[in-house]
C-alpha cells in the first residue's frame, strides 16, 4: 500500500476545471512541467464525470464555468463522492469579504489572474493535508 503521506510529485494527480481552453492548456503545461499529473475539464458536467470515475489529489476549479457559480456544483460533488479531497477555488471576485470568509472557512482561494507561485503554494498546501478519507476510498 502506498503511504498516503507520500506526496511524490510524480504520483500526484490533479484536476483543473476552467471554461477557457487556453487557460486549461497553459495550466496543464505548467503543472506537468512541475511534475504533476493533470486532467482537465471544460465544463462542470465533464468535471463531475471525471471526479466520479477517478480520485484526485487536488481539484482546482473555476467558480464560474458555463454559468456563474457552477463551480460549486463540482465542489459539492467532490465533497459528496470524494470527501477529503482538497479543493482550490479559482475566482475572479477578489474582495476582502470573500478573502476573509474563505480564510475563516479554511478554504483555499486563488484570485485571477493567478500568480503561478501562489498556485504552486496552494497545491502544496492542499497536498500536505491529511487524506484520511482518501485512504478509506483507496482501500
Amino acid at each position, binding site marked *: 500500500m502506498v503511504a498516503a503521506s507520500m506526496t511524490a510529485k510524480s504520483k500526484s494527480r490533479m484536476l483543473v476545471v476552467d471554461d477557457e481552453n*487556453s*487557460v486549461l492548456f497553459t495550466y496543464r503545461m505548467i503543472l506537468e512541467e512541475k511534475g504533476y499529473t493533470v486532467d482537465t475539464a471544460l465544463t462542470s458536467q465533464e468535471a463531475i464525470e471525471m471526479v466520479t470515475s477517478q480520485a484526485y489529489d487536488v481539484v482546482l476549479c473555476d467558480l464560474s464555468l458555463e454559468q456563474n457559480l457552477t463551480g460549486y456544483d463540482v465542489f459539492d460533488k467532490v465533497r459528496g463522492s470524494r470527501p477529503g479531497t482538497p479543493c482550490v477555488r479559482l475566482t475572479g471576485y477578489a*474582495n*476582502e469579504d470573500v478573502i476573509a470568509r474563505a*480564510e475563516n472557512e479554511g478554504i483555499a482561494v486563488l484570485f485571477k489572474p*493567478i500568480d503561478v507561485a501562489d498556485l504552486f503554494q496552494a497545491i502544496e498546501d492542499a497536498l500536505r493535508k491529511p487524506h484520511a478519507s482518501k485512504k478509506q476510498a483507496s482501500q
Partner: protein
Amino acid sequence: MATPLLRKVLDPAASLERRKSARDSTALRLLSAERSEEIFPILLEEIVAIGFPRAFVLQVDFETGEIRPGAALNCSSSYLQKFHSTLWASENPTVSALHNLKPAIAGSANSHGERLYCHPLIYRNRTLCWEAERERRHDCLAVQNFHGRRKLQLQDQVCTTCNMRAYANVVVVQLRRGASKGKVRELSSIIELASRYLARLFKVEHYFNRMRDMDVTISQMHTVMESMADPVILTDTHHRVVMLNKAAERFLKVPESVSEGGAHAVEFNNLLFSAALSSMSVSGTESHRDLTLVDVSEGEEVLFEAVSAPTSTSDGVRSGIVTVMRDVTDLRRADQEVRANLGKLRDTEEIVRQERDRLNLVIENVGDPIVVADSAAKVVLFDPLAKDLFGMADAAKHPALVRNQAKLDAYLTAFTFSFSDKQNKPLRLYHPGTNAEVEYAARSGKIYNARGQVSFTVTVLRDLSAWKKLEQLQLERRMLEMEKFAATGRLAGTIAHEINNPLEAIKNAIYLLPGKLKPKGEPVYDILQTEMERVTRIVRQMLGLYRNTEHVGPFDVNAVVEDTLTLFARQLSNSNVKVERQLGTLPPLVGSADQFRQVFSNMVVNARDSMAQGGRLVLRTRHLRATDGVHGRIMVVIADTGCGIPPDIAASIFEPFVSSKGEKGTGLGLWIVRGIVENHGGSIRMRSRPGRGTAFKLSFPVVR
C-alpha cells in the same frame, strides 16, 4: 314825611282881617312850599286862620298799619295821643273816613263834645305821572285815584309803574260849636287846594327820588362794569362809544404817557372794534366775532372773542349795542395745542397702523405657523396657518384641533415659565385634514418689556415633513449616485472579468516561455513579464470595484460594525490586534448597508495591515444631536496603533491608485471608502502619525 311842626298861632284878630286876602294868599303860600312837608303846616295855619280852633293831620304808616298824628296846630301832645290808631280800627271815625275816602264829621265822640271834621287825602292827580305818560300806561296810581274808577284798598296804594308808595292822610279839624256849613265848605276847599299842591309836589319829589334811585343803580352798574376784568363797551346806534369800562379803556382809549406807536396801536384797535361792531350789528341777535387787539401797556397782542347784544328801549327801539370782550388768547392757544396734539396723535396712529399692517403682512407671508402668546402663556395671535392647525377659540369640534391646542398649551406653558430665552423643540401635531401626525420643529423666543419681565413669547413652527421631503429627495439623489457608482464598479468589474480569462492564459504562457526562446529573446521576455504583471495588477484592482449593492434603506450602523468585526475576528486575533468597541446609541441611518460593510471592511483591513506586529484597533460610534433637536450626525472613528501613513502620501491617500501597502494594496480602498461616504452625504477625515497610528473620522448626517 311830615315833621311835626308846631307853629305858634298868629294873632287871631289879624288873621280874621286877612281872611279875604287869605284865600288868595293861601294858594300863594301853598305855592311857595318847595317840599311836601311844608304843605301841611301851611295848611294847618290857614285852617286856624279862618277861625278853627285846632287841626292836625293823621298819617298812615303803611308798613305798620298805624295811623299817627303828624303835623298839628294848637294841639297838645296828650290830646294828639288819643288819635293814635290803626288802619283796621274802622269804628274810629277818622279811620273810617280814610277808608271811605270821603270827608266826614265825627260828632260828640269825645268827652269835650267837640265835633271833628275828618278829611282824607290820598295821592290823586288828574294827569298821568311822567313815567306812565312816557310809557303810555294807564295804570298810574294818581290818575286811578283821581277817577275813582277802582276802589283801591289802602294797601294797594303803590304805583305799579314805579313801585312808589303813595301817601294817605286825614286832616282833622275841630269844629266850633255852631260852625256853619259854609265854613265847612270853605274848610274843605282849602284842604283840597292843599291836596292838589301836595300831589304836585309829591309828584316832583317822587321823580326826584326816582332819579336818585336810578342814579344809585347806575353807579352800582358802573361799579360792576368797572370791576369786570373783561372790556365792556356800550355803543349807540351810530356805533359811537357811550360807555367803556376800565378794561376796555386799556385798548380803546389813548393813555397819556404813550409813544406815537402806542397811539397808533390804540387807533387801530378802535378801527378793528368798529369794524367788528358793524359786522355784528347786522345780525339782530347776539353774535360774536374774533378780534385781535394790541394791549399797549403790555405790548402784546390779545385775542378776544367779542360778544355783543343789542340794547333797546322799553318800546323796542334799538338804542345801541353792548359788547363784552372775552380774552380767549390762552383759550385759543390751548385749543391750538390740543388740535396740534390731536394731529400728532393721528399721525402716530397712522404710523402705528402702517407698522401693524406691515407686521401682519410679514406674518402672513412667513409661510410657517406663528403663535404669539402673552406672559401667562395664553395665545394672543395666530397667523392664518396657525389658525388652521389650532383653530379658533371656539372650534372645539375637530378632535385634531383640540389635541393640537392641548399640546400647544403644554408647550407654551413650559417655555413661558422656564428660564431660557429661546428654545428649539420638536412638536408633534395632527394635521386637521388628514389626522396624520406631522412633526414640527418649534422655535420659540421671549420678548421682554422695559422692566425685564416676559411680555410675549413668539413661536414659529417649521414643518419638518417638508424638510424630510427635501431630505428624501436628497437621499434619492444620493442613492442614484450610489447606483451609478456601483454601476461603474460593476462595469469595471465586468470588463475586468472579461479581460481576466485571456489574461490568465497569457500569463501562463509567459510563464511557460523561458527555455523555449532564443537567447536573443530574453530582454523581450523580460518586457513581456513586467508588463504582464502590471496588467494583472490593474485588473485585480478593477475587479475589486465590483460590488453588489442590493438594498437601500434605514439600517443600524452599529450592526454593520459588529458584522465586520465578527468577520475579521480571527484575522485580527491572529495578527495580535486587540479590538476595542465603543458603540453609542445611534438612530437608523438611511443608505446602503452593503456599501457600509465595504467601508468598514476596507478600513479594518487597512488597520490590520498597518499593525503587522499587533496593536490596538478602536471602533467608536456616537450620535451627535443638533441644536434644533432634529438634525444630527453619526460619528464613526476607526483608529489603530499601527505604522501610520507617511506624510508624503497622506494628502492624497483618498485618491485612486494611491497605496501605502506597496504591491499588496489595490490603491482603491480608501478611494472607494470616500466615494461611499460622500454618497451618503457624509465626510471623512484622516489623522496619522507615522509610527504611532492612524485614525479615521467619518461623519454622516441623520434626521431623527
